[in-house]
């Protein structure tokens, strides 16, 4: 299964990656071989099998609507690459 150059470029845009021409070639080949590998599953007859979205045998895990302490603001902000005393700081978003 060969991935087209357009698909590679589209995926790169979605992932916010800027790739060189060489990288596009390499990643294209790698992604194609991963997909080929996964394609093997199509050799099985699954017409009688329910699709699985979760492997856990659990349903309906919920919590009550009771507030808990939030993080102190300094704690929350300190992991961000940039912040002010109150906010996360990011490059200007052009609206």
């Amino acid at each position: 299964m060969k991935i087209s150059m357009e698909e590679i470029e589209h995926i790169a845009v979605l992932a916010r990656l800027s790739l060189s021409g060489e990288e596009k070639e390499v990643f294209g080949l790698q992604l194609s071989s991963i997909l080929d590998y996964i394609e093997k599953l199509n050799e099985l007859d699954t017409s009688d099998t329910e699709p699985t979205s979760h492997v856990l045998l659990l349903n309906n895990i919920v919590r009550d609507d009771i507030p808990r302490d939030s993080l102190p603001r300094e704690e929350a902000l300190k992991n961000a690459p940039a912040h002010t005393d109150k906010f996360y700081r990011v490059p200007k978003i052009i609206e």
Partner: protein
Amino acid sequence: MANEETGLMKYEAVIGLEVHAQMRTDTKIFCGCSTLFGSEPNSQTCPVCIGMPGVLPVLNKKALGFAIRTGLATDCTISPYSRFARKNYFYPDLPKGYQISQYELPICEHGQIEILVDGQAGKIGITRIHMEEDAGKNIHEGTGDFSFVDLNRAGVPLMEIVSEPDLRSPQEAVAYMKKLRTILIYLGVCDGNMEQGSLRCDANISVRPVGRQEFGVKVEIKNLNSFRFVEKALEYEIKRQRKVIEEGGKIIQETRLWDSGSGVTESMRGKEEAHDYRYFPEPDLVPMTVDPAWINEIQSSLPELPDAKRERFVSEYGLPEADADLLTSEKPLSEWFEDAVKTGGGPKTVANWIMGDLMKLLNAENKTIEECPLQPHQLVDMLKLVENGTISGKIAKTVFEEIFRTGKNAGAIIQEQGLVQISDAGEIEKIVDEIIANHAKEAERFKAGEEKLMGFFVGQVMKLTKGKANPQVVNELLKKNLLS
């Protein structure tokens, strides 16, 4: 149906709305952070809602219950099996790089609500109601070369309520959204506060020649956070699309943004490519198989909804349809009305006072009925004083306003300001004779048959008695003494 007539071709609009309603929970949808509005920026976040590695979301049971409650109230089927999905995109207000939403298996499907437009009732289908988390808030103004992000809102529980493309005009779209808001507030699942963003919507709209079955190419308009904007943006978009078609152009499927400042919708083209959300089942949350017993419990806890209440107000209290519609448009208003009627007020009289003087006073002070300083029993007490002749209907308006302003009871206000009605015939006759004597010319003309001067004489008596004279007695005595 609003047809847009142009030349020989008539067009109609086809509109569907996606309404986002913030659910009235105390905590976020997947963590225990508070949802309180207006708190200090970034003071209500935790590792779950800011997307730290290794954390797991857990669904808020109340949010799930609220979504089911809304589904039941809008005739939806509650899905026996439902799950969350990841919607992937990058934006600074989305800490995880994906929003937890629902995709193929939403909690509610196939519902409907009834709307009234120009006295015409119609059913609008609801495709689905699903749960999702809100994003944070970006701040662009006064932030120099940067933008700032506040994540308090990230993870706040939302319901997205998607309508069928059943709406045919901006007016129908507004009526639908208003009705939905009323229902959500009755249910107690959303506070309906549009200024704070608790209720906002995106609209899908296309136009087509009347009579054609297929839909035209649709455009999505985002950022509609008031009824007025919904109406204006849709009106603008209908005109724009019609013009494009008439000039031989083609409508492009795209997302447009309503700019309330300039009153136009603008294309967000170029950002389209990023709208490839790559949904997949959310691995961090387990599926929901709602216990039918719980659904029954929620069903039996549903309040009387606005349509049922409106019909009851007509049948039980004999109110005109329009009065009943207005009084039930807000739950607290309908409760205020019923409290007053239960304490002995005549239904139509109470309705008139609410829709007239009370609304006027509330609007003037920008207050809601819940903030009304005047209690239902205070109105009823005052009405009794009108009925037994203690005060006139005219003075009642003054007393009503005084109760509203001071919170005092009618009796006290009447005593303090000496507003008791003068019904004593002897006392009124003295005044009547005095006025006839002072206006001899007018009295002559009245005797000569100019009956409309009656109003003038009544006015004079009321002026002299500061409106306190019993109008019936005044009328009788004037007639008698003018003609004698």
